């Protein structure tokens, strides 16, 4: 069905991208897997591209030769999405870092998609703007964020990546260059192909440029860290926060065990770790009074709901001491075990508490340690299964059992497989279980229109 990359192909690619084509042992092993490392695949050739035109040339060639192409940014994915499981060409966009335009009148910034989230955030910040989506992995590329529709910590107030993308330049499997969307705010102009591409994990096209919505940076922000006696107390306060006439930017929950892992991992104490469970909320706005009012409303509400106290995080230093730990949770849990797998299930916000308590049951039932943290405010949980020295057979069977129980529960509660990490290779089975064959069939139909030869990230998502 697909062709392997042969010597002629290699020469053709080298001619297109002199000095930026690598094969065999020239390809660093990091390219064989993603951040989580559950899926493995060796690309025949790795190419590093600098422009939409180069991507178009590579895709046109790959299409003519039926060679599979996997697009890759920083490789920080967690579901085996950017892994060359069918060999072929790995197209690395991480050198495409240019900011092409800052349009202050339309509040957009147009970038090449290899720019890192932290680079874009810094670019906007220096100019008094904010790119709103704030996924935990700051070294991910914007292209990666678009490919999984990454959400992050500000989703509750500002939405997810899809909400921040106004337009994209896409190279189709054939090599054709298309522009979907525009700088406009409203759009009722036919099927929204832009939104179809966002979240398609490199299976429909290669996103090379993106015009992103930005806002003037809010002048003030304050966070609160709220300790509770139990996880149930903490999470059951969240629906009340959602009902209050205040919208926090972020509402995160964290358990004591995860905080302790982060302390060990960072070699630094968290400002408090005496309680079983915490909520971490942020408020922002343009006047100090408005932000303080929001903070006080929710702080009082938390105290009325049995919070032990409410700690205020109102300076750069305090913010860094708390949020740096929050950003290190994934790495910290990873460091606490020999191998882990994850589930970023999303459930209706009213069911978050029930779901977390259910994961405790699953942990007991299957005999796995299952720490978790996540975005309580938007129902997206990050649940980690830790191997803790189990042999292959036990690990696989317990993992399988735990995942099945959790995804089934999510379905029962009206949830979905993934809130922001995507499906990739690892979660395909659960996507089918949750959505059913007919929906997958519709997705495959769409794929066949965009990519009739199926060369874009084969074997992923659907």
């Amino acid at each position, binding site marked *: 069905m697909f062709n392997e990359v042969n010597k002629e192909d290699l020469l053709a690619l080298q001619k297109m991208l002199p000095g930026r084509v690598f094969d065999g042992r020239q390809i660093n092993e990091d390219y064989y897997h993603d951040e989580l490392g559950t899926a493995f695949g060796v690309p025949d050739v790795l190419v590093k591209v600098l422009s939409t035109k180069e991507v178009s040339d590579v895709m046109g060639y790959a299409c003519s030769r039926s060679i599979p192409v996997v697009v890759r940014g920083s490789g920080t994915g967690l579901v085996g999405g950017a892994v060359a499981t069918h060999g072929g060409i790995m197209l690395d966009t991480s050198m495409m870092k240019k900011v092409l335009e800052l349009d202050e009148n339309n509040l957009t910034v147009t970038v090449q998609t290899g720019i890192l989230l932290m680079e874009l955030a810094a670019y906007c910040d220096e100019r008094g703007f904010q790119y709103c989506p704030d996924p935990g992995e700051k070294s991910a590329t914007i292209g990666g964020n678009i490919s999984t529709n990454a959400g992050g910590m500000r989703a509750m107030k500002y939405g997810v990546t899809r909400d921040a993308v106004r337009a994209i330049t896409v190279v189709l499997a054939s090599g054709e260059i298309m522009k979907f969307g525009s700088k406009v705010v409203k759009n009722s102009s036919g099927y929204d192909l832009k939104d179809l591409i966002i979240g398609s994990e490199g299976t429909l096209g290669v996103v090379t440029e993106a015009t992103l919505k930005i806002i003037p940076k809010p*002048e*003030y922000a304050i966070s*609160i*860290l709220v300790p509770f006696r139990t996880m149930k107390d903490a999470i059951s306060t969240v629906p009340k926060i959602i009902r209050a006439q205040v919208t926090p930017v972020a509402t995160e929950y964290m358990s004591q065990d995860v905080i302790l892992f982060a302390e060990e991992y960072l070699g*630094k*104490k*968290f*400002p*408090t770790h005496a309680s079983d469970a915490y909520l971490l909320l942020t408020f922002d706005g343009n006047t*100090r009074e408005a932000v303080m009012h929001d903070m*006080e409303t929710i*702080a009082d509400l938390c*105290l009325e709901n049995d919070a032990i*106290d*409410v*700690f*205020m*995080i*109102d*300076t*750069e*230093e*305090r913010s860094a*001491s*708390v949020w740096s730990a929050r950003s290190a949770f994934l790495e910290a849990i990873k460091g606490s075990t020999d191998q882990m797998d994850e589930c970023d299930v999303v459930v209706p916000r009213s069911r978050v508490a029930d779901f977390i308590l259910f994961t405790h049951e699953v942990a007991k039932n299957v005999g796995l340690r299952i720490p978790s943290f996540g975005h309580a405010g938007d129902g997206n949980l990050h649940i980690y299964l830790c191997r803790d020295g189990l042999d292959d057979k036990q690990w696989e069977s317990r993992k399988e059992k735990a995942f099945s129980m959790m995804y089934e529960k999510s379905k029962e509660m009206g949830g979905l497989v993934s809130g922001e990490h995507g499906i990739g290779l690892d979660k395909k089975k659960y996507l089918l279980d949750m959505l059913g064959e007919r929906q997958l069939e519709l997705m495959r139909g769409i794929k066949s229109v965009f990519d009739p030869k199926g060369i874009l990230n084969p074997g992923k998502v659907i």
Partner: protein
Amino acid sequence: MNILVCVKQVPGSSNVKVDEKTGLLIRPKKGNKLNPYDLYAIEAALVLKEQYGGSVKVLTMGPPQARDVLEECLWMGCDEAYLITDRAFGGADVLATSYTISQGIRKAGDIDLIICGKQTTDGDTAQVGAETAEHLGIPHLSNVTGILEVDEGSVLVEANQEKMIVKQRIKLPCLICMDSEVNTPRLPSYRRRKTTEETLVHSLTLADLEDRNPEHYGLKGSPTQVQKVFPPEKSSSRILENGSSEELADKLNRLLSDRKFI
């Protein structure tokens, strides 16, 4: 054990800019905050109180709005606060500031241990602590990284001195300046904020001090004449090394340990 922590209100952003023409500080929009270096001193004091009992008082010198940072200290767990404020204290240099603070401390009751931060983010002299101790005639030590033990009449501390880490036992009462990053300062409590009484912050003016001679305070008591204020040059010096991964790892390790980062 009765502890007193000296604190200061500083501009809200650590990135303070200076107008090169006028030499004046350009105050950031974010208002003011508690000097970040003082947070480590407060945390060290509160831990000592938890271990040995007693009380933690805080003291600052500044305009009336400096009361805000004292209240914040109370929300962190301190028991009482002193604000030394008077127009007569304005324009003080390090000598006059430390003298004023030493006079304020004399009004704060019996104190066994005075703790200061390493420096402030605006003045940056790192001299006020030591000079305050001199005015009080008590021993002092800077760059303290840990308080190891307290007994009847002394405190055993560890300090990071240029080329070595020293352990030193100091007779009480004494003054120590805590190094930065030596602990994780606790966060201010909203519950305490709701219940803290305003009366816990005492104001001290010139009239309340033992030495009421205005010549010793403020601009008049300051021998330092500021000629020019200008922003420091930003250093972007980098070290570039070549070699294999192992060699580079070795070099990096040596560099970090030489500079005592690890």
